[in-house]
């Protein structure tokens, strides 16, 4: 099979380029894209990419496979390859450090901005802050985000304004804390999101939903934030 990989080593190359590799895949087996990369790395040790858990939990190997963002470790080659060719590029929109490794700084900065931790100004209870099963249920579909950045880097609004638009991943997390019954800073959090960029740069094109490897729905979370902002202001 033909695998085309985005190559760029800023210390050596003037500009990024695509390099083609031929590889024989074992018959009768559908490898994951990460397996193919590992085989290629044995062929050409200079190929760089991030990987860790190799089972879709850590979110390290987010990349663009034949035009669609996803985790290389849980994307079968049969699904990612188009017309017998597999094209691997780094996540779009973020600065490339080397080959398929991107600088996630901007992405984490937006995550940090929404204060992704519980804020509670009531006295600390002796054991724990209790939640009813119904209250806990509200966090389902939100807490599972692994911050792989597949969604935010598939979002044109994030491409054009990565410094101002929080992005689907950050907003999913923002709603996770807005919806948490144990968090008492809801109004303060909403106040920080009521500008024309942080939330409202989302135009609902749902690229994020389309690529999320965990099957989450950031667009729905953003809709819920909008509803909360509306309820607060009308």
């Amino acid at each position, binding site marked *: 099979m033909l695998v085309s990989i985005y190559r760029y080593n800023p210390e050596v190359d003037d500009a990024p380029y695509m390099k083609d590799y031929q590889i024989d895949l074992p018959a009768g087996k559908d490898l994951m894209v990460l397996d193919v990369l590992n085989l290629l790395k044995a062929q050409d040790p200079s190929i760089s990419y991030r990987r860790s858990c190799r089972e879709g939990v850590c979110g390290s190997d987010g990349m663009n496979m034949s035009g669609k963002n996803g985790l290389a470790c849980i994307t079968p080659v049969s699904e990612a390859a188009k017309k017998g060719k597999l094209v691997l590029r780094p996540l779009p929109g973020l600065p490339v450090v080397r080959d398929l490794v991107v600088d996630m700084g901007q992405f984490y900065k937006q995550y940090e901005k929404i204060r992704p931790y519980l804020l509670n100004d009531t006295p600390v209870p002796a054991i724990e802050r209790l939640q009813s099963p119904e209250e806990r249920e509200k966090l389902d579909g939100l807490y599972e985000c692994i911050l792989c950045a597949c969604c935010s880097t598939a979002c*044109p*609004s994030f491409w*054009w*304004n990565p410094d*101002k638009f929080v992005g689907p991943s950050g907003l999913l997390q923002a709603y996770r804390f807005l919806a948490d019954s144990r968090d008492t800073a809801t109004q303060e959090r909403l*106040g*920080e*999101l*009521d*500008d*024309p*960029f*942080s*939330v*409202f*740069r989302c135009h609902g094109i749902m690229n994020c939903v389309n690529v999320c490897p965990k099957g989450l729905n950031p667009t729905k979370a953003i809709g819920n934030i*909008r509803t909360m*902002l*509306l309820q607060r*202001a009308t």
Partner: protein
Amino acid sequence: MVTQITNFGRSGLYDWMMQRVSAVVLALYTVFIIGYLLMHPDLTFDQWSALFETTWMRIFSLMMLLSIGMHSWIGLWSVSTDYIKPTGIRFFFQALCGLLMFVYIVWGIQVLWGL
């Protein structure tokens, strides 16, 4: 919180709501005009000007004009902040849009009232 002073209403929520409200007005106006034209296949100038003589039609048309101004300002402001990165050019583009919209609204009022 991202500070902005060139958007329509300072708050993202306000812009978002006005964008939707104006869209509803524009949709209603479009449906009405298309419906009116379909119901009057042999439309004469007298019928057309009689329609625009009525107060309710002038109110409806003025609402539509103001909605176009708001809707296009919010939309083009978004486009300019997405795609035009140099501040000077972006501000010039936004100022030009603002001026054009103001001209269209004043001109539209003149046309509507036959001033």
